[in-house]
């Protein structure tokens, strides 16, 4: 198996072996052997992800089952100054790679749904609750969650915390998080929002994001475990209502689709809308139909056509609109959507989509009507789908950024093509654009090229189009780029985690890897 081909090396942990042994001994004594692993084979599967980023071996993996377990781990790690990298579903995020070695804290074992509050429309989950389990638990109560296109095993908390895509009305997805419980390196437990007063007033619920003091929720979101270990999250849930609908509109340009998303979201006609580039919609059709991608003419079309070109036989953009409500309301809103689309040169695509692109339809329906997490796109990972070039920008800038990005990536010579999807965030104040180049998962040179392209694209997008990226990637120096903001974050980090044990390998405050 090791003959020929790619030789991707895993980096060794930089932590001193005597320190590791001391940590192992103390952790095992405190938590028991079942929760602590040092078997090299077990460690290896925590060394990286399917992302084309080099792996690093951790020294110990710990699976806490309770907040108390997390406190124990952090106190030991802080005392010994051993790095701790928290992971949950452990998927395609650079933050889960234990670059500094030490302890990986696998939070997936804390997997309880602690409360479903249908009165106040929120639920409280531990980190290991997957979106599939969550959706299935709240559905019988007549509720749904805000979903991105991630699969059912992925952590609800992990996604909301790292701004997984998807939104509801005026919110971005991180707004779905009402409150957090976080353990700090010294074992202190912090709760945010209305729950901050839990110790003094134990009856407090999680109903409000805020209280009389500044909102600390935000500093833990997107922090990738560098400021504390999140052990609970209260998440907004929404009624499924009487009718679920998903009118899909087709447009001949991305600009028309963006204008449409802006208008319909600002008019409160939809709960969410997302636009799919023809290339990705086509790939979804092949994957979700169970078709043979390699033999498909559509497959060739996607990977040989310049992605900014109109495909000719199908709309350039498909905009999926997610709506729930009363029947009369949905009918009226759907008619208005159609009218707005027509005014922008678009058309309603539902019937055509079902007939010509049943896989795409099925994929959209899973999200838009069934409100279920999907598995359809997972097969795309065989094509290196996992690499994400995410920027979001104001509507006037997102349209030229789309063209720039497609050309930029296409012309830098990756073997395969590039496509994307694009969400409307916060009523179109900001538009999310995730370009998706396909990177050969077993070609090391291609990996390196992909990382370079990514780095350059993000910087150019920010410089030329006033865009910003959605989460920390370990590659660019956002702390330095953000001036006073970055400086404050550094000071907060030093105050909260003076020994720098929390995910130090990510180098979020030192400018990246």
């Amino acid at each position, binding site marked *: *198996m090791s003959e020929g081909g790619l030789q991707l090396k895993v980096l060794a942990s930089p932590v001193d072996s005597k320190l590791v042994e001391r940590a192992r001994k103390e952790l095992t004594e405190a938590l028991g052997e079942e929760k602590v692993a040092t078997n090299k*084979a077990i460690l290896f599967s925590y060394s990286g*992800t399917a992302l084309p980023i080099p792996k690093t071996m951790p020294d110990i993996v710990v699976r806490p089952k309770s907040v108390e377990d997390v406190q124990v781990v952090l106190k030991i790690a802080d005392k010994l100054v051993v790095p701790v990298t928290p992971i949950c579903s452990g998927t395609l995020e650079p933050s889960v790679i234990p670059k500094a070695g030490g302890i990986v804290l696998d939070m997936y074992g804390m997997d309880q749904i602690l409360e479903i509050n249908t009165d106040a429309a929120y639920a409280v989950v531990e980190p290991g609750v997957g979106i599939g389990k969550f959706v299935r638990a709240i559905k019988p109560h007549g509720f749904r969650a805000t979903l991105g296109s991630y*699969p059912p095993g992925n952590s609800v908390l992990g996604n909301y915390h790292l701004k997984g895509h998807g939104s509801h009305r005026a919110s971005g997805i991180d707004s779905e998080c009402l409150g957090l419980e976080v353990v700090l390196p010294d074992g202190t437990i912090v709760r945010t929002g209305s729950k901050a007063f839990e110790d003094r007033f134990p009856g407090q619920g999680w109903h409000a994001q805020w209280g009389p003091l500044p909102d600390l929720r935000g500093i833990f979101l997107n922090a990738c475990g560098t400021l504390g270990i999140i052990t609970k999250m209260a998440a907004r849930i929404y009624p499924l209502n009487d009718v679920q609908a998903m009118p899909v509109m087709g447009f001949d340009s991305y600009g028309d689709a963006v204008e449409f998303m802006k208008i319909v979201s600002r008019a409160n006609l939809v709960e969410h809308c997302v636009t799919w580039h023809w290339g990705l919609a086509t790939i979804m059709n092949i994957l979700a139909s169970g078709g043979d991608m390699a033999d498909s003419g559509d497959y060739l079309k996607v990977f040989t056509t310049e992605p900014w070109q109109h495909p000719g036989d199908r709309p350039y953009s498909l905009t999926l609109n997610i709506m729930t409500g009363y029947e009369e309301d949905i009918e009226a809103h759907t008619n208005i959507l159609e009218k707005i689309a027509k005014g922008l040169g678009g058309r309603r695509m539902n019937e055509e989509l079902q007939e010509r692109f049943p896989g795409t339809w099925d994929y959209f329906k899973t999200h838009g009507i069934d409100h279920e997490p999907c598995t359809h796109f997972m097969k795309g990972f065989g094509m290196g789908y996992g690499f994400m070039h995410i920027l979001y920008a104001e509507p006037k800038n997102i349209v030229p950024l789309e063209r720039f990005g497609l050309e930029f990536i296409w012309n830098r010579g990756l073997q395969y093509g590039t496509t994307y999807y694009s969400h409307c965030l916060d009523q179109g104040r900001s538009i999310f654009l995730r370009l998706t180049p396909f990177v050969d998962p*077993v070609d090391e040179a291609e990996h390196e090229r992909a990382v370079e392209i990514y780095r350059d694209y993000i910087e150019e997008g920010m410089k030329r189009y006033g865009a910003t990226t959605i989460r920390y990637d370990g590659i660019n120096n956002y702390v330095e780029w953000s001036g006073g903001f970055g400086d404050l974050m550094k000071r907060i980090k030093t105050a909260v985690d003076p020994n720098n044990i929390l995910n130090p390998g990510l180098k979020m405050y030192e400018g990246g890897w």
Partner: protein
Amino acid sequence: MTLPMEMLMYTCPKCKICTGNLHPGETGEVLNLCPAYTRYGFFTYAGGGKCYLAQGLREGSLEPDADLADVLYHCTLCGSCAEQCATDQSPTDIARLVRKEIVKAMGGPPGDAQTVVKSTLNYRNPYQQPKAMRYRWAKKLDIKDASKEKVDTLFYVGCTAAMIPSRTHFATNTVELLNAAAENFGTLGQKEICCGATTYNLGVEDAFKEIATENTEMINALEVGKVLTSCAGCYSVMKNEYPKVVRRNFEVIHVVEYLDQLITEGKLKPTKPVEMKVTYHDPCHLGRYSQLYDAPRRILEAIPGIELIEMPRNREKSWCCGAGAGVKTTYPDFAAWIGEQRVNEAKETGADALVTACPFCEGNLSDVVQATEAGMDVFDVTDLLIRSLE
């Protein structure tokens, strides 16, 4: 698209769908389906984790050593990860591939599984039994010798049903039922050799090829047309794996398929009521490996008085019995734990008995019932069918 195995190794997105019934559209409780992940909790034990181990081995970051073997062989290769995998790939196949590498590097599988392999090679059975023991179960029975006279069907008994005293009822029941239907069948008697399933699952590739070839050539020469097995492991390996090694001129049928057909044709008439609430355990090698789900259920439903109650984890989403792929030999505590989960699940249905169609499953589940004093009977499908014949 079937991706090359190497691609799967590198593209597992850790979505964890390999661990449970998480596909969209599923309803009810989320069920744990991967025994190793459920028991040990670290991702490495899940199907996806095995893909990462294969990466490590391929890159030279992991050695094929005791640490790796310990994780890899704490797996029954039950196939639930392959059934669930959202990429439509088979982490089970990846795990088997890594086992082969371990065997190549370490000279064999870990622990007591080595004894099984040696026995299979030396005695042509995994139980270190002399050849003469293979036909002891049939001492008082008059069965045709298929190597001497022409028969339509060869009953391939299998090592467990032939040599483990508490499991010989699989063999005797089959004979009784075939006789009741006046079928023209025979066995190979003492000439029968192991099917090689254990060597295959343990990753001992050369031994498996040797046995598969020897067995196939011996059976090919009989020109029987049909080979009937009462063991899910024999059935799966002969049906699904032999053709990858050697040309085969016979069809492989499991006894539940055969009996189902005999009932449909009216050759077997289950008329005597058997008043019992039962639940059916799908053997992995019959179910997920061979998609044989309906035949055993049809047989049970054809028996008057039987009430079949399904466990929450059934058919494609069945929970393994715990015995397979060397686990019962190498890690008996883990096998017992898996079996106990299953017995508890069966008991929760309110059934009087747990019915299966594999001597290996029956063996482990019976051991658990006995050890935990679960107060539940464990039967093979044929046990109940025989009771129903006049």
